[in-house]
């Protein structure tokens, strides 16, 4: 007798966690998502392409990934999924929270620091531009979210920075 096996996965898309369970035995494949269940059939077309029949409709899906990250492309759109393994809070979310932490201004993208407009010890007002970062010829102004004191400046004019890299630390008054 065929034994039904199942395996569950968790993926984070834009901060929201989604569970998905693959259920299958030698004759049938099904998927369960948020309490709904579909029959599925999957045919790998190439390492980056999967022909997927789900709930009676066929779709061609493109996929690539590195580590726990999956890029899924279909119909010109791309979904970025972070696979969450284990029960601890997922790293992607922790990182996102850290970069938004009160008083920390970090680069929104990989780029180059054009200008730091403050000095350590300065007081800044809400919406005051503290630094300018440029990538691909687009300037982005990093602004203070409220009145604060500049505690630490971690980059200089001309420095190359990664996305999320802290540039200026502020302390709210």
């Amino acid at each position, binding site marked *: 007798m065929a034994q039904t*096996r199942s395996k569950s996965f968790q993926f984070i898309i834009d901060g929201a966690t989604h569970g998905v369970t693959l259920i299958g035995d030698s004759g049938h*494949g099904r998927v369960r998502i948020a309490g709904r269940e579909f029959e599925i059939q999957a045919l790998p077309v190439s390492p980056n392409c999967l022909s997927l029949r789900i709930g009676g409709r066929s779709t061609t899906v493109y996929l690539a990934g590195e580590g726990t990250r999956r890029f899924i492309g279909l119909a*010109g759109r791309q979904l970025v999924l972070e696979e969450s393994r284990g029960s601890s809070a997922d790293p992607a979310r922790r990182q996102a929270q850290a970069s938004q932490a009160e008083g920390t201004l970090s680069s929104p993208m990989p780029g*180059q620091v054009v200008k730091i407009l403050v000095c350590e010890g300065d007081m800044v007002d809400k919406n005051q531009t503290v630094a300018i970062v440029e990538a*691909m010829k*687009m300037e982005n102004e990093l602004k203070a979210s409220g009145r604060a004191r500049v505690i630490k400046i971690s980059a200089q004019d001309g420095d190359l920075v990664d996305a999320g890299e802290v540039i200026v630390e502020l302390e709210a008054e």
Partner: protein
Amino acid sequence: MKAKKRKLKKVLVANRGEIAVRVIRACREAGIPTVAVYSSADSRALHVQMADQAVCIGPPPPVESYLNVDSIVSAARKTGAAAIHPGYGFLSENAQFAARCEREGLNFIGPSAEALSLVGDKVASRRTMSKAGIPIIPGMRSKGKDPGRFAAEAEKIGYPVLIKASAGGGGKGMMVVHSAKELRPAVEASMRVAGGAFGDASVYLEKYLPAPRHVEFQVLADTHGNVVHLYERECSIQRRHQKIVEETPSVALDEKLRARMGEAAVAAVKASGYSNAGTVEFLLDQGGKFYFLEVNARLQVEHPITELTTGVDLVRQQLLVAMGAKLSFGQKDIVRRGHAVECRIYAEDPANGFMPSSGRVAFLKEPGGPGVRHDCGIYSGCEVPVHYDPILSKVIVWAEDREAARHRMLSALSETIILGVRTTVPFLQDVIAHREFAAGNTRTDFIETYMLPWKESVDERMLDVALTAAAIDSQNRSRPPAGGSTRSPEQLSPWQTGSGWRIGGE
């Protein structure tokens, strides 16, 4: 003129990305060997792979590589290239570079240095066009680098005003200013961008026209005084003053207006002693009045839509003009057919203020089918460096009429898969599908008015498919290496039995 009337023995392409690829192909078709130049960030770039020879011209920052005149001229010397095609952006409209080429006996594939310095200086060219009787937008008749001077000028013109880089193009350094308070920081920021992008920080002010259409005319001029236009392109769909969707014909022109604007475009080219391919840009206000904006003295990003509707290969014509050939057709030989649309694919996150998204292209699938053209500078596995303009490729379609072209574009975009970096593809799909776009209500404020704030709409079906595909992929990856350790029951997955992942009752 000494560099003219000669065969192009070998062409150095002083650019990168999709436009370098486009030019290399045209040269290859003409039997002309090519030399690519590249910065150290681009050693694996597509244009480098496609050229017959490639020379590294410096480190990643543009000023040290793609804007480095000495380095590029020396690459031409070293490889025996007799001509330089500048593409668009970078040195394409730099008169000093063209002059240097002329002095070195290199054939600059574009207008003469003299014509370039006239039209390249937006302020001088406004004066010339005004004298030639072509309407211009009210604004400064001289440029400046002193931010203090601008306040008085802005008061005179009246807010809102537009700051523009005198040597500019592509919207770089362009900013709208609504009040005196914003003026100084905006002028400074604009000058920084202009200085970095064009090596000239001069800016000037113009009256800001609300919600005009951007309509431009393609022109071709040989070195024997023959000038033709190849009709208009409407490029009103812009973000950050940079075009992202272009089409031809424009729904806003009737035959009378089209003829008048075409004549003005030819007059503008004649007034500036211009040769080779160029574009005369106009703004068309809501009352149907047009104003000269600028001459783009180069091949435009959006040149393919003109190629598809007129059947004229503009890059081939550029090469012929540079060889000293006469245009083989006159104005009345240029017959237009059908409708063409171009969508520019940028490495940007449209859901996040069009933030640049550099990184590795994990996978690329190009669109295809009848009437679909994909001018592309990337490939699966390539890196998109942070240092340059984030254009990745252009999807261009042709069909019998606008509505057919619109549907063809939607289909082509849905076939365009770029994974690993964020792109404008989903945003463009929503633009082309928008009923106001379908209705032809395309003005330069289209994106602000109809599209922002934008969030990618992901329906349940799409989410189900993505989650299922990702789960299957994870399942597959968890398979231990062949001949590896003992498998646990969980790892003995039914998803891997039989032919690969095929499952279900077959």
